[in-house]
């Protein structure tokens, strides 16, 4: 094949997310990215890690109202991905170390680039 790196994807429950991420951190993995996919009525969030080119992916599937705990207490730099996830998809992330409350990505349009789903959201773009 064109690429020869190994990739694994493991599903993780919402309540186990922080613990699993902590185990990867302790195992020497670096955070590569956090990405969100709208799968029609719910969201799939991929937390990607790498160690010696071994690519591991934790997959969290949540409904539109679920609050996702931040992993920025473990990986400080996660705030960019978590704020992006909030600003572009409206996923509420709790406990981000630097919470921009919807102003990290400064888009003029509310839709589809910002939070429109939750009337009570603290997001200033909403």
């Amino acid at each position: 094949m064109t690429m020869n790196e190994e990739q694994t994807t493991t599903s993780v429950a919402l309540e186990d997310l922080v613990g699993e991420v902590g185990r990867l951190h302790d195992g020497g993995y670096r955070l590569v990215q956090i990405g969100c996919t709208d799968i029609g009525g719910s969201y799939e969030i991929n937390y990607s890690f790498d160690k010696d080119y071994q690519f591991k992916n934790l997959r969290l599937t949540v409904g539109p109202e679920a609050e996702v705990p931040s992993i920025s207490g473990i990986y400080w730099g996660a705030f960019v991905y978590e704020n992006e996830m909030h600003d572009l998809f409206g996923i509420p992330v709790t406990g981000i170390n630097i919470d921009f409350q919807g102003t990290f990505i400064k888009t003029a349009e509310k839709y589809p680039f910002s939070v429109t789903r939750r009337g009570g959201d603290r997001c200033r773009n909403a």
Partner: protein
Amino acid sequence: MPKRIVVPFGPQHPVLPEPIHLDLVLEDELVVDVVPSIGYIHRGLEQLVQKREFTEYVYVAERICGICSFMHALCYCQGIEHIMKVEVPDRAKYLRTIWSECSRLHSHLLWLGLFADGMGFENLFMRSWQLRESVLDVLEDTTGGRVIQGTCKVGGIRRDIGQEKLDEMHRALDPFEQQCRDLGDVFLNDETVKYRLQGLGVISKDEAYTLGAAGPTLRGSGVAVDLRETGYAAYGDLGFKPIVETAGDCYARCAVRVKEVYASIDLIRRAIDGIPEGPLDVKVKGAPDGEYFSRVEQPRGEVVHYLRGDGTKHLARARIRTPTLANIPALVKMLPGAQLADVPVVVLSIDPCISCTER
């Protein structure tokens, strides 16, 4: 305790070709905290996968960035080829490698010029861009485009480089390398440059790793991570070792890029020597059904294209994580402790590409 003030840096600033905004919290002239924000040129390119067929999206991927354009197309194509189990011909892999390294060369020379400009070293800036022009000329000769090459496609490449042209490129490499080494000598050994860069914007090895930094920002802190080691395209045949510096300051990040210029020239030389004859592409049938995290080492670091197909001509999702986005947390950590006058140099040291970051 000195009074704290907030100074906005950007989105328009002489050292920033693209808009990013930093709120700098200062005590007198000392930076004590930084709050970044982006979004001024967010284009929603990821969402275009729902409107363009997967073969057409290569053109969109290539336009994510005007500097590492070829490598965005390569990363996207490799992801689709993995999902569809397409084996690209060896000649296409070698030509992809040659164009990738030409892209890295012109990107690093562009950055070296901008960095010299940021330091106030104007003739070094002009010399860097003069050398960059010769790389752009090669790209134009071999692909037809200086910035957007348009030669990568799912299943291979669109355009060959004839043996005569390859020989001409090979002959030009020795004098070009000597010119680059003369230029690099100033960046690496000039006392003024050292005085300006050493000890500035330091980030430790552990910090760079756990912050998820990428590319020269990561390798400048002593972490030997370079996706070319995974052997995509022809890198597996050519062999490659990451360029690493350990100081973690602006000088180290600059030194990594200077030495990567030499390494790119060496890779192009060996790729031309070893390029096999053969077809340029294979026919791709059907549509992608599956997912893959495609990764490629761009000049600024690791780029990730997450691609998911559902068996139709339109992908269900493309998510692109660019190296500059990954380097923003590192930037936020390296700025506190710097003087206000040094902020432009520290910001430039991560080689920010906001067009990529915004997508």
